[in-house]
């Protein structure tokens, strides 16, 4: 340990270091915390400027009693009836197309069309049937005396009044609320027709709306299905396993050769090996791509893992440095006992170099799991996509709007590496130190 550390610094300096580190740690963790917080939010909460500090991390939810039962609801628009012109909740006696209303809804339409606007409804030409309720407001005019609802087309439909909506006697705002369901989180279901359930809605004064925190673990299964998680995970794991195995086997062999065997031009070749670390991927990318195309490997996993079976300069270098630090007497003893080089490698060097080899395996796994450019260039069919690519495809396909789903998938995608890190912390830290010391 460094001498500076032998004596403890003054208490106020330690407090200061703590304060700086804690603040820094908070700022470094914030993005990740936010990622997880977003992944548990409902869609509409991600599209809203938070009203207070708590809402940055916890999406707000609302509860309302509708017909004697408490529902989780989504707040829709405000309703402003006047004493002279009250609004009504009415039940039409004849069916008509939802598109014929200015702002349509009925129990069933909520269920079917979660992103609910005139354009979409018109497009889908949903049907309002006699058992549904419809809001008759300033645009969808209802004449209580005649019992007729006027549609956009000018057609009049007979309807019965369910409730009359007058301005709130206490002066509260009236708000349209509709039942919220966890499935709402999936933005894809818009227009799906296979749901039979109906959805409650009502108009209530603001004071009846109870504010809660809404966390939706359902985001996770939805996000994973949408990203095609299982398929991509299998692809990613396949590439990772092949890379780790290849990288470990080849790098250990080659590093052993460079460390302990003597042959012509060894130092020259080793120097060349170190020099190749300087070549960026962009330089060799094009000819390597053309080479793989000649071999017919584009659109397969081979370009992603085959090269790792031929060694990688960085790991060869690291392992050789580590091997050179091993006691040479052991090797000489084994050689005198008549062991072949392979036997020495297997029985003497590998057991001693276990931490270094574990590090090579870990770092290869990490690199392959995180890799984006390789899969982007070499894979072209969604069924082959690795997690990186699936996630990016999902993001770009939606223009990056369903942030709650994207963050849920991202969380799941990052989690294995974090778990791996905590499980193998000792090896990891040694490994990082090793990469540093060689400088």
């Amino acid at each position, binding site marked *: *340990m460094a*001498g*500076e*550390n032998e004596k403890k610094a*003054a208490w*106020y*300096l330690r407090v200061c*270091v*703590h304060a*700086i*580190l804690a603040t*820094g*740690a908070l700022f*470094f*963790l914030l*993005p990740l915390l936010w*990622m997880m917080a977003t992944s548990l939010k409902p869609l509409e909460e991600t599209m809203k*400027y938070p009203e207070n500090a708590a809402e940055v991390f916890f999406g707000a939810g609302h509860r309302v009693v509708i017909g004697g039962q408490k529902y989780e609801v989504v707040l829709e628009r405000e309703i402003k009836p006047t004493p002279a012109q009250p609004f009504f909740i009415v039940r039409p006696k004849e069916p008509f197309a939802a598109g014929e209303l200015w702002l349509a809804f009925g129990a069933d339409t909520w269920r079917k069309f979660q992103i609910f606007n005139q354009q979409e409804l018109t497009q889908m030409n949903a049907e309002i049937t006699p058992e549904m309720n419809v809001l008759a407001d300033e645009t969808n005019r209802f004449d209580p005396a005649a019992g007729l609802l006027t549609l956009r087309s000018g057609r009049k439909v007979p309807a019965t009044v369910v409730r009359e909506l007058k301005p709130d006697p206490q002066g509260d705002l009236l708000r349209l609320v509709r039942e919220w369901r966890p499935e709402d989180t999936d933005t894809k279901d818009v227009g799906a027709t296979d749901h039979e359930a109906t959805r409650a809605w009502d108009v209530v004064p603001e004071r009846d709306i109870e504010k809660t925190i809404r966390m939706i673990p359902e985001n996770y299964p939805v996000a994973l299905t949408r990203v095609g998680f299982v398929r991509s995970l299998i692809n990613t794991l396949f590439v990772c396993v092949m890379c780790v195995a290849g990288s470990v086997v*080849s790098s250990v*062999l*080659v590093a052993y*050769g*460079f460390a302990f065997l003597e*042959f*012509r031009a060894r130092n020259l070749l080793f120097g*060349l090996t170190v020099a*190749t670390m*300087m*070549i*960026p*991927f*962009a*330089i060799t*990318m*094009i*000819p*390597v791509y*053309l*080479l793989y195309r000649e071999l017919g490997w584009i659109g397969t996993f081979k370009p992603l893992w085959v090269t790792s079976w*031929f*060694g990688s300069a960085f790991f060869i270098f690291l392992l050789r440095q580590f091997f050179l630090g091993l006691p040479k007497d052991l090797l000489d003893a084994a050689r005198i006992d008549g062991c072949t080089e392979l036997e020495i490698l297997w029985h003497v060097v590998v057991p001693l170099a276990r931490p270094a080899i574990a590090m090579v395996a870990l770092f290869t796994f990490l690199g392959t799991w*995180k890799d*984006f450019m390789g899969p982007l260039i070499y894979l072209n069919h969604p069924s082959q996509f690795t997690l*990186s690519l699936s996630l*990016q495809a999902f*993001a*770009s396909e939606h223009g*990056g709007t369903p942030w709650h789903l*994207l*963050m849920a998938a*991202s969380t799941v*995608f*990052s989690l294995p590496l974090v778990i791996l*890190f905590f499980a193998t912390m000792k090896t990891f830290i040694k490994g*990082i130190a090793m*990469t*540093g*010391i*060689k*400088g």
Partner: protein
Amino acid sequence: MANLRRHLSGYSFIAPWLVALVLFIGFPFLAGLYFSFCDYPPLKTPVFIGLDNYAELVGDVKFHHSMGVTLLYASAAIPLGVLLAITLAMLLNARVRGQSLYRVIFYIPHLVPTVVVALLWMWIFNPEYGLLNIVLARLFQAADGWTGIFVSLAAAAERQNFFEWPAALLVIAPVLAAISIGPWVPAGLRARPSLHRFMAFAAIVLVVAGSLALVNAALTYADPFDMRKLHAPGWLTDADTVPSFLPYGPSMALWALILMSLWSVGQMAIIYLAKLQDVPGELYEAADIDGANWAQKTWHITIPMISPVILFNVVMAIIGTFQVFAEPYIMTAGGPEDKTRFVAMFVYDNAFLYQRVGYASAVAWVLFIMIVVLTLLAFRLSQKRVYYAGR
């Protein structure tokens, strides 16, 4: 004979690597060089055209532009990264409780996959609902409270809030400093140097906070345009140069990417930390005997002792900058106005989008030469300053 066998066994061990060296590195390296002198339309054979690609490259505004973007990024991200990493490493090397937890926390961002980093930061940079703008809005709200005192009392009056406690510190701090450092400190207090020094220390912290407020006020007064912009930047969609008085500088979008790159600085910090812990303690003891203070010890012992790692990291960072691809590809697709079209992306576009393999190869080779030159430059410039222990 035995000699030959020994050679053979050596070669058989490194055989896989020899194959890779020839097939996956050497051949592509040279083939790329050849292609760079060729016109190579897709699915046809390359035709030698001499230096035409390079000639085109000299006049290609888009190439100059992407090179400029890359160099701007490098010149901001590398020094900031190194500085932050060293500072962090020194903090992480201090002897306080919970240090291993801090080390883990600062390292974790490095474990997050590239695509996730890109998507997460895209979300953080979201102009309307992004975390960064939310936090910035709060911070600037507070900062403006301070600034208002200096820039315009009218603004403070409008808020009906003349007493901002942080601003009050500005008045208290110098007084405190004078009290705690001055020669009039009572002898009784001087007998307890710990408390005395603490007061001095606290005073310095407050003075620093005060000067920050003053700087904020001065900037708001001198350059209201940039300062207003800082309050809610569009980040990734903003092509304007910041600070705006520079004739040529990083755009806001590039700054966003630089900021993002600093998030994963923990990995570098851990490498520095490993080296810091290798610094022999006797050096510090000797310095203590000579009466060196903290700054002197840092400048004359710590920095020289870790200088080889600094050089190594800088070189790796230079190489890394020329490969920045995934983040701009996912986050900005090169926009806004090509202000984040890095040179690696330029190569990718030419090779795979426009199918101009020959031209892309020429660009790649220019890149390589630049990397070599910059690396040599780094070595040359640092020759006298890097200290290799035991060499």
